[in-house]
């Protein structure tokens, strides 16, 4: 993918650039807002990671102007503030996702993947399947190797999120945002608790572990990649 990084802090920009480079993306770096806007308008991009506070033109204005110019490139906004209002303002300006600095690179990588996959507007699937696990999105029921599994609503929602991004990492924070709609760090282990319950239900009967947990990276459906 061609990804634009608009970040005035060189160290952070370099950190993100190297990380994305290693994942095989082509990275363009802009050091200020006007440069970022130019690149957004002129270049064919798959994704833009834009810091909220940029010299010459702030990140919010960059996104707003790009959206006025009908540039539909998905935007991940970065901020050092993490205030409630900032997130709302960011989404209002037209950003697609929002990440508070400092962040673990894995968090950024997972969100970049998620945003990139959002792009093709394919028909919504009614069933998700991954290595013997079948999720029927209409009936909201789950099978593994043909055997029905009873899940609590939250467990089902988590599985659905993992299955939608099967093979890719989904972080704790992303699960909190998508399943619980919490955009703050609740400092609790609710995600871990529900993941562990979900896992034990899926693995019942001595089947191989269905969910892979990687410290610092997140969770994903096991067995792929």
């Amino acid at each position, binding site marked *: 993918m061609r990804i634009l990084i608009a970040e005035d802090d060189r160290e952070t920009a370099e950190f993100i650039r190297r990380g994305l480079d290693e994942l095989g993306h082509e990275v363009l770096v802009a050091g200020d807002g006007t440069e970022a806007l130019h690149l957004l308008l002129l270049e064919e991009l798959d994704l833009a990671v834009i810091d909220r506070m940029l010299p010459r033109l702030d990140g919010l204005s960059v996104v707003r102007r790009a959206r006025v110019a009908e540039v539909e490139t998905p935007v991940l906004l970065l901020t050092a503030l993490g205030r409630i*209002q900032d997130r709302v303002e960011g989404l209002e300006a037209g950003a697609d996702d929002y990440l*508070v600095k*400092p962040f673990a690179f894995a968090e950024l990588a997972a969100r970049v993947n998620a945003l990139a996959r959002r792009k093709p507007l394919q028909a919504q699937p009614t069933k998700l399947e991954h290595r013997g696990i079948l999720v029927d999105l209409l009936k909201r029921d789950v099978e593994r190797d043909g055997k029905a599994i009873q899940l609590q609503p939250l467990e089902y929602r988590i599985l659905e999120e993992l299955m939608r991004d099967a093979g890719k990492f989904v972080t704790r924070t992303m699960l909190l945002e998508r399943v*619980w709609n919490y955009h703050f760090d*609740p*400092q609790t282990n609710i995600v871990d*608790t*529900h993941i562990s319950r979900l896992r034990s239900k899926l693995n019942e009967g001595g089947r191989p572990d269905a969910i892979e947990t990687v410290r610092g990276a997140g969770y994903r459906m096991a067995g792929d990649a």
Partner: protein
Amino acid sequence: MRSWRRSAAYRIAFVNFAAYAIGIALLGAVVFAVIHVAFTRQLDAMVSDEAQTLAGEYRSGGMTELNESIVERQAASNRMLYAVFAPDGRRISGSLRAARPALGAREIEFIDPVEGPDFARSTVVDLSPDARLIVAVDSDWLEQFEQIILIVFGVGFLGICLLGFGGAVVLGGYLEQRLRSISNSAQAIIGGDTRQRMPVSPRRDEFDQVAMTLNRMLDRIEGLLENLRQVSSDIAHDLRTPLSRLRTRLEQGMLENSSEAGPVLEDALRRIDEVLSLFGAILRIAEVESGETRRLFERVDLSALASELADSFGSSVEDGGRTLLWSVNPGVAVEGDRELIAQAGINLLENAQRHTPVGTVIRLTVVAAGNLAFFAVVDSGPGVPKVDLPRITKRFARLESSRNTAGYGLGLSLVDAVAKLHNGRLVLTSAAPGLSATLELPLAVESLAPTEEPKL
């Protein structure tokens, strides 16, 4: 509106009005008494003069002339009454029908040929041992006159009372309104809108002087607070930047070589994340306390939110060896920030788990009563000593008993700040045993008649 009895503005206005009314009534009574005495004296002087004149005529012309004069006078006036009595009480002249009176000036009773028994002011003199003259004047007209005065005064007094009462209501209302505008502004400031100022009218009266003084005070306080806020967010921000860089470095190092330094780096990362999340929590509380997020308020279904929390926490509480019981009344809604209320609820539930022994029962209750919504978390744990209750919502407050459990003592501070942001409060009481923590929030206005919003 507050009750009139408890309003100083109305009390002042009505006391003032009552004082005037009593003053006017007293003045009226005095004027009336003076008029009464003066007129009575005038009547007495009139009859006395008349008696002197008649006595002169008796002396010059005897009984015959006196009799003629009396007849003549009676024909000319119907106000004056005359009679001459013999010592045996017989009336020998005049038409005044009364008993033979004693000497002197007084009020007598007589029979009026038209009106029957009546009163008159009279004077009685002895012309000779055989003739006692009485001259009287009917006090009817004086009574009528006094009655008119009373009616005029009464009607006037009633009018003044009505005017005064109306004036007091208007004055009281005015005073109360001026005070209320100050009180409303103060309430808004307490609620977090620190930009709010007391209204000042162009009249520059005493109220405006007070308001202006208060505004200067508020400007000063706001300046100090702004400084403080600036300093703390500067500190938090300035420390976050190098910490963020450090974090980046560590993570980079960890990704580049996963040698034996790995676990150490991982541990360092975890610790930095802890400090960063502490800064995040401090900044979050500051943001909530500033009241700036109030513009994002929307209708929040507290019942649904509590059920979600119970679903989310039930299993983790169970895994921790405790029990979560919940009873959530449906349709309880408040006006607010869903995520902040959720965070407050999570903090209360986390607290109930973190500081209680295994086997504790935690109860989550959501009810509406009056115009308040109650979100209560009650545990059956060891509770908190009563003296410590007011302290535990302060930032970084930690009880001796929980020194060795996780956390920085910011959880309840945030709950408290969230409660205040929503014009509510956090009530901590002993549940004997255990701690009862209740979030009291004003109900959403339309919560009384819940309406389903169309879901798109």
